[in-house]
């Protein structure tokens, strides 16, 4: 018994290491390929012997590297948010984009940009946290009104309806304040606007959000077994949920403020991770961060190639990957046989 656990945890570690290596490899590819391809040696020298006079060094330092790091962090944040949501609510359809949280953050960004055109990117990030928080509050509020408790599917449908409404309001404001370009960017989900300041925002949000997530992992495992079980084990579910929500807000809010609404990463990665890593969130949360990062870096690469030399919003790529998966989940959990 002990042997199998040890064995399986070794296996999991190996899988994580392989995923991490793949991530590093795809980051390197992502840095070296683009509208102009830059050989690996130049990438190497741009990092370790940077020369301001060389254009390709500039491109790598100022555009490619911050973009790759942003992709890694945004993917990781969305995937971890999705894992926490699915674990806490025991809802296989829960994820930041399905439940309208990303749309709440985007609406808040639009409002702030309309009211204060000169707002700093830090201010926008805070607005994004607040918007994500209001969307979560709205969905919890609606959930509490449902007859006989809300089922996973109903919660997802309500989330989609809330998301649609919030997105409509964003569109109206963008038309009125001539912000179509910025808002179109946020609603489509793009990584092309990332810079070192995006990395800073993501970094500081991650320093707060991720440790909370890791700290909660054990409690989420218990919660995912059922609320009764958690109470029996003497766990303060309310506190755990509150902390979980805070972590979701910070991670999702930061991701949206940098890359806009990138859908489906938070939905599919936790499922894949659970399939490989089992039911223990001590493994699921770190692994989903790695897998989410990998998914977004690869999607970003595809998004640059599919329509070259133009860039396709990365959100469209993640949707195309995510939709078949969502359909599979819908067939599986969409209410009984008939």
């Amino acid at each position, binding site marked *: 018994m002990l042997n199998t656990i040890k064995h399986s945890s070794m296996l999991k570690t190996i899988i994580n290491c392989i995923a991490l290596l793949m991530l590093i490899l795809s980051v390197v590819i992502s840095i070296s390929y683009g509208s102009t391809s830059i050989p690996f040696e130049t990438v190497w020298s741009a990092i370790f012997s940077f020369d301001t006079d060389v254009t390709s060094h500039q491109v790598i330092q100022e555009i490619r590297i911050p973009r790759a790091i942003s992709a890694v962090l945004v993917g990781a944040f969305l995937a971890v948010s999705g894992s926490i949501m699915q674990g806490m609510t025991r809802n296989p359809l829960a994820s930041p984009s399905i439940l309208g949280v990303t749309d709440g953050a985007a609406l808040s960004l639009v409002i702030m940009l309309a009211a204060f055109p000169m707002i700093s990117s830090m201010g926008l990030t805070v607005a994004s946290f607040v918007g994500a928080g209001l969307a979560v509050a709205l969905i919890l509020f609606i959930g509490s009104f449902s007859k006989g408790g809300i089922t996973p599917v109903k919660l997802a449908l309500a989330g989609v309806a809330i998301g649609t409404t919030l997105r409509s309001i964003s569109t109206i404001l963008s*038309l009125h304040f001539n912000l179509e370009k910025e808002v179109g960017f946020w609603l489509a989900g793009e990584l092309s606007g990332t810079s070192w300041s995006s990395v800073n925002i993501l970094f500081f949000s991650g320093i707060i959000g991720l440790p909370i997530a890791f700290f909660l992992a054990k409690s989420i495992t218990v919660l995912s077994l059922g609320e009764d079980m958690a109470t029996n084990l003497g766990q303060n579910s309310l506190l755990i949920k509150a902390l979980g929500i805070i972590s979701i807000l910070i991670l999702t809010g930061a991701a949206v403020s940098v890359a806009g609404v990138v859908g489906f990463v938070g939905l599919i990665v936790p499922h894949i991770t659970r399939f490989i890593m089992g039911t223990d969130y001590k493994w699921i949360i770190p692994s989903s961060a790695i897998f989410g990062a990998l998914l977004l870096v690869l999607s970003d690469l595809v998004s640059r190639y599919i329509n070259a030399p133009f860039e396709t919003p990365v959100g469209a790529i993640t949707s*195309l990957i995510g939709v*078949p998966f969502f359909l599979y989940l819908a067939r599986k959990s*969409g209410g009984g046989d008939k």
Partner: protein
Amino acid sequence: MSGNSNSKKRKFFGISFILIALIIIMIFISLRTGVISISFQEVIETIFQQGSDRNKLVLFEFRLPAIILAILIGIGLAVSGAILQGITQNELADPGIMGINTGAGLAVVLYLFLSREGFVVSSIWMMPVAAMIGALFAAFLIYILAWKKGVSPIRLILVGIGINAGFAAFITIFQLKMDPQDFRQVAVWLSGDIWNANWNTVLAFLPWIVILIPLVLRKVNALNVLTLGDDLASGLGVNVERDRQILLLLAVALAGASVSAGGAIAFLGLIVPHIARKLIGPLHQYIIPLSMFIGALLIITADTVGKVILAPTEIPVGIVVSIISAPYFIYLLLKAT
């Protein structure tokens, strides 16, 4: 029994009369609303051929076709929603939520792209056909993917949402292959804007409504039986699957044609049949005509509100409709067991 049905008939005619009166009032309000304001008196004068040339141009060449188009779109989407809700016995069904509208939108985008590249002939008459093919394809896909020894209402919606997201992603990818000017137009149109409203669009769209609606009205009895559920319907000797397929085809065709004329207006087909059922009860010979009137009234009202509320910015009618209707959808969702 016969007395009961007579009083129902009287009630139906009473409600219809009120709705038509409201539609006419809204048409007048809508005619005078816009960037160039025209007073009621001027509207009346112009209608009786006494107005200035400028007013004639604005009213007859811009506003009137837009209003007539809106009315037709409202009718098409509302009836489509009423049929979908009837045949799926699902009060959450709507061509917008289920991705049928987005399917039609994708087909129109593809058609515009192909005609721009010279692969197909560009013609306004072909747009409804392209949209209908897209809508049929989406409906087919949703039905197949939601099928699992039958189609559960919730699963149908859930699959529809997925299909919707997928088509939307394809549209985004296509966006970059199009001329920026074209794409901007398409983007606004997809959010439910009555785009390109002129008499030609009206004429291209009108035949679909004129042909399809009477066909639907001929099928109301089958629709009533189907609403009772499959077991009861086949017990009554109705060929359930055949009737369902014909009605589904009609609903999809109506939605597709409406999308080609007015963009993807979501939620209209959802709430209108609900209002109609609240007013008149479950019989489709009453629900379908009332849905037509309510759909028309709602869409002109939403269009006028969209023009006024943040003037001079005009808000696409589809966005106004979804802001009004999405909360109602959530309410229905929570009520459903």
